[in-house]
């Protein structure tokens, strides 16, 4: 609802199986990055590899990783096609964003606001606050001349609609955004600042090989659905919220959600 009130268009995220290329390489995430290790990501035995990738674009991505370009130094390593071909269960919905932006770049430029809320997968140890799957909320705005000020403005608007009006931002590192900001919101109940999401501007090394115009910037942010929900409802075990072990009586007796009213 909130995204709709803010005029966003939903991205088609109904594809859990993704190739490493769209999940990582297209986002300028180097092939030796720890997130690409088997103990962070679910790789697939069947279907183990992707069949097709857009070859000319793959070539541009390879180049930017290996030797840079568009004003970048690149990472200076041998980029391997086999790594990019490996299929996986997407680790973030940003994999879909990269497909959407690539599709956008093929047409005459038009400003866009996209969002998605869907499932992502991490091969992590499961405990009270972590599951191997969770939901990611993602929003992005693609337009000419956007700045960090715009990103902060949009985040203030978005989070105040969720009932969180005090925000502050911490410099952070993401392989595919620069500048990057972690978002902290002041929790009136807990009387402290809690991390509520991550955000940034997609790196030129991601956007320019796609063919987007030079002056186009993309501001984006993401957060998990479960974490804020757990804080909101005071739930301390994620399995009480989601999965087959939930108590049906709890679902039936839960008050209606009034967020955004």
């Amino acid at each position, binding site marked *: 609802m909130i995204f*709709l009130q803010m*005029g966003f268009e939903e991205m088609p995220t109904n594809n859990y199986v*993704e190739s490493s290329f769209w999940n990582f390489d297209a986002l300028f995430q180097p092939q030796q990055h720890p997130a690409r290790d088997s103990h962070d990501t679910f790789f697939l035995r*069947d279907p183990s590899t992707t069949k097709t990738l857009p070859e000319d674009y793959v070539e541009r991505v390879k180049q930017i990783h290996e030797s840079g370009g568009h004003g970048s130094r*690149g990472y200076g390593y041998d980029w391997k096609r086999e790594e990019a071909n490996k299929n996986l269960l997407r680790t973030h919905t940003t994999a879909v964003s990269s497909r959407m932006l690539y599709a956008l770049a093929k047409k005459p430029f038009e400003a866009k606001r996209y969002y998605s809320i869907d*499932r992502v997968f991490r091969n992590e140890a499961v405990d009270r606050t972590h599951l191997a799957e969770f939901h990611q909320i993602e929003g992005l705005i693609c337009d000419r001349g956007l700045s960090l*000020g715009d990103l*902060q403005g949009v985040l203030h608007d978005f989070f105040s609609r969720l009932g969180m009006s005090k925000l502050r931002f*911490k410099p952070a590192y993401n392989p595919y955004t620069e500048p990057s*900001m972690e978002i902290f919101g002041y929790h009136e109940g807990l009387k402290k600042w809690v991390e509520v999401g991550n955000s940034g501007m997609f790196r030129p090394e991601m956007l320019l090989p796609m063919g987007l115009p030079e002056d186009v910037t993309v501001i984006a942010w993401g957060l998990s659905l479960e974490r804020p929900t757990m804080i909101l409802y005071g739930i301390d075990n994620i399995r009480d919220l989601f999965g087959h072990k939930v108590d049906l009586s709890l679902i039936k007796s839960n008050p209606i959600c009034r967020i955004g009213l």
Partner: protein
Amino acid sequence: MPTVSVGRDLLFQALGRTYTQDEFDELCFEFGIELDDVTTEKAIIRKEKHLKEEDEIGGNEEIIYKIDVPANRYDLLCLEGLVQALRIFLGIDSVPKYKLADDVGKESMLKMHVKPETSVIRPFVVCAVLRGIEFNEARYNSFIDLQDKLHQNICRRRTLVAIGTHDLDTIDGPFTYEALPPSEIEFKPLKQVETFKADKLMEFYKSDLKLKKYLHIIEDSPVYPVIYDRNRTVLSLPPIINGAHSAISLKTKNVFIECTATDLTKAKIVLNTMVTMFSGYCKQKFKVEPVEVTYPDGKSYICPELSPYDMKVSLSYINRIAGISLEANKVAGLLNKMQLHAEQSVSEDNECTFIVSVPPTRSDVLHACDVAEDVAIAYGFNKIPKRMPASLKPLPLNQFSDLIRTEIALCGYTEVLTWILCSYKENFAMLNRKDDKSTAVVIGNPRSADFEVVRSSLMAGILKTAAHNKDHPKPIKIFEVGDVTVLDELKDVGATNHRQLAALYCGATSGFELIHGLVDRIMEVTGTPFVSAGDNTGYYIERSDEPEFLSGRQASIIYKGKRIGTFGIVHPQVLENFDISDPCSVVELNIESFL
């Protein structure tokens, strides 16, 4: 995110003032690092050994700060780098100028010769010398810790780069970097008293908790990488262990550093990090003695490469990305706080441009956008004026799913949200189904049996939910609308999602007629008329024979000539498999066809 542990008092002493924890937290927040935990050496040892408060243990009570640093800032992985970055950020120090020692002529420069055989196992090496270094216990420990931190992070557990440090006064150049059959390498490794042949040593380390995880990097190679000095003294067997002969100690004055690698770019970053962080303790501050590395093709290189990388960045770009409008002088000042030196120049079209010098400590700066971020950090993220950039469109499939959800909830069913990953057994055998190998997406590296396949139907999840809610008053009426994934030759990745609806009734009777009624209701609200078999304008049902349902008590749903799902009484064997003692009826159908 890597975590660095530093002694609080040592840190404050180096920063030149003390901070309250809140003040230090605030400084970290502004700079983009995070004070993750405050502890003591004692508490850490207790935690490791699972000891209680009162147990007597070694270690001291000095307060330790555990600080999370960004994964691409290798220069922040030790106290020296953290202090330097923060002091410059606070405007106390200026950016050091790292230089190669110029009093070493090409003739007298130390040399490393690379043999051709290394190309098959670990082809690159870079070296440097820290001359006249002064260690004390804290510095020495930091020197060792930094190597470990680099090994775990950028070196990817020594696969990409391995660092060896040696007491230069115990060895004689020129050095050679070779690759030899394991049986031909013999030396006394660090911390051992005996000499080993390399093949025996690998066997020996199989029981070494720390080293065994690196053995795989070279174990199966016919030749192992090894570094010798002119007297055939082994310096190291990278990436496993150094030789005992050249081990460094608190007394070491001259340190020889070699980094062997499969990734040359990263080797250079690692070497630069080592020498820049510790050249501050050398007799000639920030000076590093170079080494000449010669490859088999005769090409030779002087390393380390400490000269700054120059980047052209326009003032307007910085202001545009950061969303601020600052003057050139102010921007240059902010860049200095982030260790970047900026030289202004004005081009013909009156556009102000900076030549930004990126020092060897800042290998994370790849593009002008990194420079713009640094300006924004130094300016203060939270001081940037907020703006709102100058349309309503949900995805039809999701909007439709929500409409269907509301309708089913109105029929008295409770919505559940179950996991997409499940065990192989749950997806097939427990549902009496056989795997035809052309349906389900199979995970290659599951951590446990709970995550072996991606569900190809919603039924297992909904049955598990019923099973876990035995105590809930009957009847149980639940439903889920969500995606399943099946193999699909037509997709680039070879698999595709389908939006499914599943509903379950569980009570004293099977509730078959209620589930049938729900199917009719779904058809009603989607405006689908009931038609006779074979008519493609509406829906009808026909006898089906699915193994998860009771024979004769199940039907396929045919929508506009296409089979979109099945409903029926769940087979008693399936109920038993899921440990459900009451009869159940289930419908599962694809809702994409309704769009």
